[in-house]
């Protein structure tokens, strides 16, 4: 990784926040910083890397913003008072380059990008772009939309922030917890997008999903909450299996068939320590994240599929269903119960259940096959295949169907 790549990856959000605190012009800041990065891309290899790469980028970006402000002042045929004022503040801004003030600015940026007045998918994309410095092309890839669509979505979110007056501030003690819950949800939305059924196999999307974990960690480092901590543990555990999820030929590898040596065991250990250090929290959201993390931890710490403590997983799902009831949770619980107590017990939990998508018929098909009801199993696998729009999952379902003699 070059110095430029490192600075973009690790400092982008701080630099955006710093420039935004100084100029309060969201419409100028991102473009100016992107221009500065483009200039650095050609200049640094020739001139050598600057001693302080972040400071170099901020200075270059400031120059561009001041140029734009002067041009605006000229166009408006006004005395360039605004420009003078902004230049004056530049000197103050230099002192804020390090220390707590900047941390506060970064928190302001995180909260602004994940403001509840923004549509969730817009907030998610904007956070990855502005806080994490992910390119629009990569954000588009993560969410499986064309780059132009994603560029328009990010532009709309920025326009709403400016027009609707979404503030660059830290709310009071009462409101900040809820606001950080939205930040967590925003990160989780991006994370799950990386693992969502796509039009085809794409390993890079899983790597991009890791950026969502970094986003949650940035927020948690600035202002820890039980919901964020438990969510980070959950995402880290899910993410630790990424290399084992897809085989070399692109086909999906299910949990029992995964090569556990491919799991990132260092990340599992880190997630377990995080879970240990995080309070359970009192909100349903924090508890739900924690229970899901505990379920993921049972899988992650099991040395082999046969050794999986399905009894404990089934109990955790039963509690999860009380904390946040949903048909999807019921299906997951039925799978665990089927493993712990047999397929009939699992099928009993699915009676009269309704859940759109391929997951429910796929699970019913599997459990019916295990009780020996081949005819009904075929029917359910067939409707699951018809409903599944992910190549790798569909291939798996088809192989299950054809294996039914």
């Amino acid at each position: 990784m070059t110095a430029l790549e490192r600075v973009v990856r690790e400092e982008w959000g701080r630099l955006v926040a710093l420039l935004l605190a100084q100029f309060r012009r969201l419409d100028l800041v991102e473009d100016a910083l992107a221009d500065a990065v483009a200039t650095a891309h050609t200049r640094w290899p020739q001139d050598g890397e600057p001693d302080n790469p972040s400071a170099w980028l901020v200075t270059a970006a400031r120059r561009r913003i001041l140029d734009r402000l002067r041009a605006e002042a000229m166009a408006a045929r006004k005395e360039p008072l605004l420009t003078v004022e902004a230049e004056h503040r530049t000197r103050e801004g230099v002192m804020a380059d390090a220390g707590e003030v900047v941390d506060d600015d970064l928190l302001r940026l995180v909260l602004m990008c994940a403001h509840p007045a923004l549509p969730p998918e817009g907030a998610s994309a904007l956070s990855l772009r502005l806080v994490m410095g992910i390119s629009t092309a990569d954000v588009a890839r993560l969410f499986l939309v064309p780059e132009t669509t994603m560029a328009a979505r990010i532009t709309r979110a920025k326009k709403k922030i400016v027009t609707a007056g979404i503030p660059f501030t830290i709310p009071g003690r009462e409101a900040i917890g809820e606001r950080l819950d939205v930040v967590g949800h925003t990160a989780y939305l991006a994370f799950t997008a990386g693992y969502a059924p796509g039009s085809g196999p794409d390993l890079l999307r899983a790597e991009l999903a890791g950026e969502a974990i970094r986003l949650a960690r940035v927020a948690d480092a600035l202002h820890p909450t039980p919901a964020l901590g438990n969510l980070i543990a959950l995402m880290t555990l899910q993410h630790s299996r990424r290399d084992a999820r897809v085989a070399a030929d692109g086909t999906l590898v299910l949990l029992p068939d995964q090569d556990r040596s491919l799991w990132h065991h260092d990340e599992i250990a880190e997630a377990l320590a995080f879970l240990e250090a995080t309070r359970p929290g009192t909100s349903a959201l924090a508890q739900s994240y924690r229970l899901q993390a505990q379920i993921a931890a049972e899988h992650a710490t099991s040395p082999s599929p046969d050794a999986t403590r399905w009894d404990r997983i089934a109990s955790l799902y039963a509690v999860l269903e009380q904390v946040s009831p949903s048909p999807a949770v019921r299906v997951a619980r039925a799978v665990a119960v089927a493993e712990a107590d047999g397929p009939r017990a699992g099928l009993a939990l699915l009676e009269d259940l309704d859940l759109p998508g391929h997951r429910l018929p796929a699970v019913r098909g599997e459990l019916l096959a295990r009780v020996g009801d081949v005819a009904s199993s075929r029917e359910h696998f067939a409707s699951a295949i018809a409903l599944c729009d992910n190549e790798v999952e569909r291939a798996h379902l088809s192989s299950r169907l054809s294996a039914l003699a």
Partner: protein
Amino acid sequence: MTRYFLSLAYPAEVWADASESDRATMHQAHLDFDAAARQRTTIVAGEALASTDTATTVRHVGGRAQLTAGPFAESAEVVGGFYLIDADNLDVVVELCDLLPHSYAIEIRPVVRVEGFDHT
């Protein structure tokens, strides 16, 4: 400073079927909102609207005005009043909305300033 138009919507029966004491509670909520909003914002205007059965909607069809009785969109929720306020940012407005009756749905829209066109 941004100017915001707040339209206050609620199911028609929220007001029509309200008891005297319910109406007094709602009235007090508006007085509380007014007092708090004056501390932190400028209230440019604010009115309660007569019921939607007194509304007249004008549409031009083939260049001619056609009148229909009632609001432009028939829905379960009706717009029953509005505020026009100048505030620092959206969060201030959202916080103030907490004082209004919780049976309301409140749509907050920033106002577009058109140069040379100011009626206030």
